[in-house]
C-alpha cells in the first residue's frame, strides 16, 4: 500500500481517530502545496528536472503548478531577481492565497549570489518574507526537494492562529505589506 502521509498524534480506538484541528489541517496543507514557480534563471532548469520523472515532485502532492497567484500557496523563487523584477515578485506574493509560504532556491534568490552589482537584488528577503532557503549554485534537485520537505514541516506544525497574531502582522508590516484594507 502506498503511504501518502504520516498520521498525526492522536487518540486512536476501535473505529475512530481523534486529533486536534491544527494537526488535521496541517496534514492536509503540507501534502497539497501548490507551487508557483518563479523561475528566472538556471535554478529554474534544475526545477524542471525536479518536476520530471526522475525526481518527481508530485510525490509530495505538489504536481499542480500554477502560474497564477490565486491558486497557489507556495512561491518558489528560483534564480536571479533583478531590482526591476522586485516589484513584480512582490505583487505576485501579495496576490497569493492565504496561507502562503516562500521557498528561496539558489544563491541568487537567497543573497544575490555572485551578482554583487547595482542591478541585482541582494536576496529576495529584502522585499518578501522567506520561509526556507536552499543554497547552491544551482542546487541539485535533491536539495530543492529537501527545501520543499522543510516547507512541508512548517505547514504541518503551523498553528492556525499564527497568521492572525500581532507578531506576524508586524513582520508583514516591516516588509511594507498591507495586512488589512
Amino acid at each position: 500500500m502506498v503511504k501518502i502521509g504520516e498520521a498525526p498524534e492522536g487518540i486512536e480506538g476501535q473505529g475512530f481517530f481523534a486529533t486536534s484541528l491544527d494537526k488535521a489541517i496541517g496534514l492536509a496543507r503540507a501534502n497539497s502545496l501548490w507551487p508557483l514557480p518563479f523561475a528566472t534563471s538556471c535554478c529554474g532548469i534544475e526545477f524542471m528536472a525536479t518536476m520530471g520523472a526522475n525526481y518527481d515532485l508530485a510525490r509530495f502532492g505538489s504536481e499542480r503548478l500554477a502560474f497564477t497567484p490565486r491558486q497557489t500557496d507556495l512561491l518558489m523563487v528560483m534564480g536571479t531577481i533583478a531590482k526591476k523584477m522586485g516589484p513584480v515578485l512582490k505583487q505576485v506574493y501579495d496576490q497569493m492565497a492565504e496561507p502562503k509560504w516562500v521557498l528561496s532556491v539558489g544563491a541568487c534568490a537567497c543573497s544575490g549570489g555572485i551578482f554583487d552589482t547595482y542591478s541585482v537584488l541582494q536576496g529576495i528577503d529584502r522585499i518578501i518574507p522567506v520561509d526556507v532557503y536552499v543554497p547552491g549554485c544551482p542546487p541539485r534537485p535533491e536539495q530543492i526537494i529537501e527545501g520543499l520537505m522543510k516547507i512541508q514541516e512548517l505547514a504541518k506544525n503551523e498553528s492556525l492562529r499564527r497568521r492572525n497574531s500581532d507578531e506576524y502582522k508586524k513582520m508583514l508590516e516591516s516588509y511594507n505589506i498591507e495586512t488589512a484594507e
Partner: protein
Amino acid sequence: MLDLLNLRTNMSTPESYIPILLQMGVAVGFVALTLSISHLLGPNRKTARKEDNFECGIEIKGDARFPVSVKYFLSAILFVLFDVEVIFFYPYAVNFKAMGWEGFMAVLAFVSIFLMGFLYVWKRGALEWEK
C-alpha cells in the same frame, strides 16, 4: 396495491426518476456547501493590492477593451485565405506526376479563382495600409 406494483416494475413513470433528482440535488449541494464553507472559514487577507487584477505582477495600464482598426482583421483574414491556398500546393506537389494534365487543369482553375479574388481585394484597396 396493483398501482404500487406497477410503479415498481414500470421504470418509465416520472416518479421513478425521483432518486436521480435527489442524487443530483446532493451532488450540487455538496459542491455548494464545501465551496461556501472553505470561502467562509478559510484564511484570507483582503487588501486592495490582493484584490487587484493579476497581470503577471506588472502594474495595470488601461483597459483591454478598446476599438482596433478594421485593417488588422482584414489583413489577418486575407493572410489566412492565401496561406491555406499555399497549403493545398503541398499535396499537389507530392502527387504532381500521378495527377497528370487533369490535375494540373483542376489546380489551374483553383488558382485562377484565387487570383480573381486577389485582384478584387487589390483593386478594392484592402492591401493598402496607409490610407
